[in-house]
């Protein structure tokens, strides 16, 4: 790995941390969301440098979408979306800071104490192929399970989030031909 790459990676790392800190410093949820997105994108950059382009791309795309959803969500539901009114919504600030720092300190101490068995850096084979083979082979069952998890999440999230179900829309016997929705639109229309 070239020195440049290393420096860039570290710089991105530092950026990720700084942006991460900013998440809890800025006084607007929108800004916080975008800081978080920035942090994730920096990490995606690190991935890219460290020969994982596919995962970097997935991360970047997914986080962008997710943060977009989050932003929309905030703007729709939450108070103080645009940071118009500076406010503090924290409790136990110093305790939390101490806890966060303690975690950091413990981990860092460990990291710098351990004698890492670094592998000889050589030409990497196709990293994406490696991932794909693992997913389809050794870790196939894991991915199947992830599929079930996602199915479950859709179901559970929907149930939890929505106030109205099929019987509200189509009647107790599901006999209604057109759904009875307070707002027009959506499925079954």
């Amino acid at each position, binding site marked *: *790995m070239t*020195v440049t790459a*290393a420096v860039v*990676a*570290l710089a991105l*790392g530092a950026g*990720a*941390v700084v942006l*991460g*800190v900013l*998440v*809890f410093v800025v006084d607007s*949820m929108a800004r916080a*969301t975008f800081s978080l997105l920035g*942090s*994730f994108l920096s*990490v995606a950059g690190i*991935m890219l440098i*460290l020969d*994982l382009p596919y*995962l970097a791309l*997935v*991360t970047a795309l*997914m986080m962008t979408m*997710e943060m977009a959803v*989050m932003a929309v969500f*905030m703007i729709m*539901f939450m108070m103080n979306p645009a940071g118009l009114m500076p406010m503090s*919504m*924290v*409790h*136990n600030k110093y305790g*939390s800071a101490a*806890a*966060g*720092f303690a975690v*950091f300190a413990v*981990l*860092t101490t460990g*990291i*710098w104490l351990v004698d*890492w068995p*670094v*592998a000889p*850096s050589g030409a990497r084979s196709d990293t994406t192929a490696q*991932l794909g*083979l*693992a*997913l389809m082979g050794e870790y196939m069952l*894991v991915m199947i399970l*992830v599929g079930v*998890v*996602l199915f479950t*999440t859709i179901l*559970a*999230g*929907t149930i*939890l*989030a929505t*106030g109205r179900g099929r019987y509200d829309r189509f009647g107790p016997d599901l006999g209604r031909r057109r759904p009875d929705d307070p707002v027009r639109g959506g499925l079954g229309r």
Partner: protein
Amino acid sequence: MSDVVLLQLLLTVAAALVGVGVYGALSQQSIVMVMMGIELIVNGVLVGAVSAWYFLTPEAPDPQILIVLALVVMAVEMVMGFAATLAIYRARKVDMVDSATDLKG
């Protein structure tokens, strides 16, 4: 710069992200902000996993799978978090964790 130091520095970055995330999760009152803290911890995991893979076991796919799983975790927890927030907002018109303290003792 040797690989070892680079690895350690990157891991320190990961640790810092975890630390910041912990701070956020503990200190924020808004549910969504707590979730952001948790996301940051996952972010740290991502950095750790990718460094591990690159410097330690480039021949093993496990760290890569871990990254995939981390993303899944992040997505799933976002979904459930938003759903929970919506639910509690519907039931109690609050979005702050401190406001939900009926259950205690």
